[in-house]
């Protein structure tokens, strides 16, 4: 569908003419960026509409698709690359997209929202064939099936209707990390479309002190810290955190439109299949059940997976609408090293803000829907005493040598046991570790309990960059200058160091 290449060598922009209901897909290599401009017609990226004439910048190995319902012409900048000007490593136009099916799912969800709102308002019921319950959707699918993309499209469509919806988007895939860093599970209310620009913020961005216009770039998620990328590492902890998150989602005070908007839950691939996930089938089902209970799920969407659809229908069929939806052909296999790099982008973005150099000659560029200069952040390097911060590891892998255990303790630590980490001891493995800084514990001593750290939300992430054992100090990279004294943190299995 390529209409022609510019003949001017200096500005090798490229135009693509897309027929209705087709999409242009691209994948970026590390270190490259790309700008896409809508010239004619209408187009959207994962459900977020593009404004014509604006250069949308992508980077950090972003893989995306420009889809058009009505047909359009788009212009691609040359790639900004360290080596040479070239095209994205992969780019093509596809006429096979699952968008029609996704739009139908959206319609069905809209019907429920409308009915739920009518019910809340006590309006006359116009159609009782549709349940008057807000749609609470769990999205399941194997690895690389496009779960996050489906969640994003459905969320974006909901907030684009102009009906005042603000669905809660939930991420319980710790490998994905949601809005901050990998290892976290989180939930945020979304009320403007999420703009795609980087692998570092696929679900939108969390608020910083930098001014932004789109609320999807200033989200206020609630975080819990699981600390590992794989669900199999500590399924019990996953279960508990999912339930904690769900409880808060259900306790949230909201207006009728927000309540009617429902929620959409993105899950790890491990929930879909025991093959490769290391989770046994029963563990998998327990975690799915945890989600279903915690978020009061009434719709399960299974992406392109017959066996799982049947399994879900068998378990939940009576009370939950289980629907198989098609998988996009644009979803690519992601290897392990790719994930590692994405984790790096996420951490860097968390500390330093989203920063992608636009390709040469691109002006009036927008990154994530905001002017490109305003998203840079300055983290702080703080030196603190060992005593300032109480650090815990959760569960068995924190197992300390026998001598370090309190008298009378047995070696059999439970998976849920918070164990203090002493930075002064060798083998603390704190250097370069990502720590989740927790919200303060209950100020009422009487209300505290052993495992309280498991149930505290995360206020931020910090990285231990240096340890000075003789003077009992450590250097911390922190997103801001807030004091860490007297706070509690949990260390997981993620490390990060700046290149």
């Amino acid at each position, binding site marked *: 569908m390529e209409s022609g290449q510019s003949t001017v060598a200096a500005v090798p922009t490229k135009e693509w003419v897309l027929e209705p209901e087709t999409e242009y897909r691209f994948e970026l290599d590390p270190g490259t960026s790309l700008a896409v401009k809508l010239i004619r017609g209408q187009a959207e990226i994962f459900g977020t509409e*593009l404004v014509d004439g604006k250069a949308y910048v992508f980077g950090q190995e972003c893989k995306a698709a420009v889809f058009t319902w009505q047909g359009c012409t788009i212009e691609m900048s040359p790639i900004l690359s360290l080596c040479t000007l070239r095209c994205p490593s992969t780019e093509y136009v596809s006429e096979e997209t699952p968008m*029609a099916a996704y739009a139908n*799912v959206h319609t069905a969800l809209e019907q429920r929202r409308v009915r739920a709102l*009518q019910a809340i308002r006590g309006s006359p019921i116009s159609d009782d064939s549709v349940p008057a319950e807000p749609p609470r959707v769990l999205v399941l699918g194997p690895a690389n099936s496009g779960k996050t993309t489906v969640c994003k499209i459905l969320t974006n469509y909901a907030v684009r209707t102009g009906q005042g919806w603000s669905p809660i988007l939930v991420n319980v895939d710790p490998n994905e990390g949601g809005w901050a860093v990998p290892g976290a599970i989180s939930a945020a209310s979304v009320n403007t479309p999420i703009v795609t620009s980087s692998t570092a913020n696929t679900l939108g961005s969390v608020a910083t002190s930098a001014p932004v216009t789109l609320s999807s770039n200033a989200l206020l998620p609630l975080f819990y810290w699981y600390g590992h990328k794989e669900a199999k590492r500590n399924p019990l902890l996953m279960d508990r955190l999912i339930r904690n998150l769900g409880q808060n989602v259900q306790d*949230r005070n909201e207006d009728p439109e927000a309540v009617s908007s429902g929620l959409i839950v993105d899950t790890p691939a491990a929930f879909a299949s025991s093959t490769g996930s290391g989770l046994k089938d029963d563990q998998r089902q327990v975690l799915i059940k945890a989600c279903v209970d915690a978020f009061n799920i009434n719709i399960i969407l299974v992406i392109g997976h017959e066996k799982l659809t049947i399994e879900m229908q068998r378990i939940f069929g009576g009370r939950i609408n289980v629907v198989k939806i098609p998988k996009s052909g644009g979803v690519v296999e992601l290897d392990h090293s790719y994930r590692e790099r994405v984790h790096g982008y996420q951490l860097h973005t968390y500390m*330093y803000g989203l920063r992608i150099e636009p390709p040469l000659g691109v002006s009036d560029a927008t990154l994530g829907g905001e002017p490109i200069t305003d998203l840079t952040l300055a983290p702080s390097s*703080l030196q603190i005493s060992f005593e300032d911060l109480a650090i815990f590891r959760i569960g068995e892998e924190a197992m300390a040598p026998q001598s370090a255990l309190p008298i*009378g303790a047995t070696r059999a630590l439970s998976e849920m046991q918070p164990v203090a980490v002493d930075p002064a001891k060798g083998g603390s493995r704190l250097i370069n570790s990502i720590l989740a800084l927790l919200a303060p514990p209950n100020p009422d001593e009487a209300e505290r309990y052993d495992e309280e750290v498991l149930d505290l939300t995360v206020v931020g992430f910090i990285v231990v960059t240096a340890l000075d054992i003789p003077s009992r100090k450590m250097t911390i990279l922190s997103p801001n200058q807030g004091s860490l004294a007297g706070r509690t943190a949990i260390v997981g299995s993620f490390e990060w160091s700046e290149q």
Partner: protein
Amino acid sequence: MKLPAFYLLDAISKNVYEPYARHFTPFIIPLFLETYEQVDQNTRSKMEEMLLTWRTGAPNGKELFGVGPQVSIERAIWGGGDSGYGADASRAGRGGTTVAPVSKAQVLSELDFTLSQRERSLQQNPYDTTAQNHVNVLRQLRTLVEAGVSQDELRDVLNQLRALARSMPAPPAAAPQQPSYQSPPPQPSVPQYPPVPTTFSQPATYGVPASEPSYSHQPSYSPPPRAETKPWASTLPPASALLQNTIAPATIPAGTSASVAGPSSIPLNNIENLFSALVKAGVVSSNNGTPVGAGATAKVEDVKPGEVDPARQTSQEYRRAVLSQKIKLTNADITKQRPQVVPFLYDRLSSQCKQCGLRFAGNSIGKKKLEEHLDMHFRQNRKAGQNVGRGHSRSWFIGVEDWLHEISDSKGKGRADRRLTAKEAAVVAAKEEEAALRASHVVVPPGDEAKPISCPICKETLQSEFLEDEEEWVWKNAVKKEERIYHATCHAEALKSNRLAALMRSEKASRSRSVTPDKLSLRTTPPRGGNSDADGSVRVPASPSTQTRFAGTKRKADDPDSPIKEGGGTPPLKKMTISTAA
């Protein structure tokens, strides 16, 4: 020359006028124009902002680099002749010469500049209804201009703007760079700028014809000029007509202004009229559902009795349409049906923001939302330009209590805006900033303990103190920059005043991959003795940044006697370890 370098030059010249400004004067014109030609739109609008401050940047309130360079540069970038600096409508077309075009960018720049001054004065005196009115009118004007108006209307708006500017009281002291054209009697100031611009005939040298705008530039915050894509632009009431109607007697008819009175004869205090005219024009034209524009939305919520509430009507229509679709959540229905909702995502929401793509209903309510939304873009953009001096950072995340009660604001303004504009947040932020600064200290080099040193800014002696834990002497409230020790607070204040810091910081941060974070931000050491209490004790709803700031406020470096909160000295760690043993 890069923008940061310009800010440096700007800062030096303003702060140490003699002899630097004079040194720069001979080459400021080519320097500015050459740079301007090479940079992107964003940077250009920043440079334009800076240029406007130069008008009154000298200590005596006059042009920082002299009137000649000022006029030359302004003419070169905004088009020359009569629309340029110092040229009033009274001189338009004088001597039968062609009237030079007024560029939209110029009008927007001047609008923004005046608007920001009014907003600042409003901030200082929130009950000043006149200022409030001014701000309202200016915002509406801005929307009008941004929506795209004719050349004549642009000129008219510019004239009106200058008239308004003159009528305004002087901005408060906090606005040190008060342009002279805003304040005293306009008439005397005119002779400073000879009507015949031969004295300042520069442009040819820089390839910029004086008579036409050489760049079709737009400030970064304005959408691309696509009048044809804005369905309402065409039906916009002409600004000139609008303005003429209200300020009728003395208004200059657009385009035929050759013999019309000078600025002083424009009624200056008729701002209420102007405002209400804007509103009226909007209401009148909003009936047919198409135009939006400035005033159009100011009163749209006044639905006349008997009329159907358009918002409700649209919603009902939407709900009916959605519910009428026979679709079931089944594999078959999902994959076989043709989706019917697409028009509801596009065409049925006909007012689109050309900055971010958000769509709003085509009715008056939708347009009001669009207007609020555009207003927000504008404010965010300006805020981005007025970085507080320390760069941005990521706040701590919101806590459970705040998250649970975060009010879903789905009816209009984005949350980001609400959080960031909160006045309390600013106050708290300032306090936190100061506390953090006071907590920072510099270690006294061995042997220098007895040596008194003074802060280069305030000239006062820096206080030193012996830190027991560190076993070393430190200067309190101190930072070391380029081998000199400043009061941290003085230094930050100085940085703030010229925005240099913000720029330097963001420049550095952009290269951060290769720079250690220590160099990026103020390095602080947590205070001894003082304790940081949980955020829990102070709750600032709906403001994560605020909350963070509070966490920071708890540094009580200067207040070692502050009571230590219960549990503060005993981190939960201890209890935890003991109980795990049980």
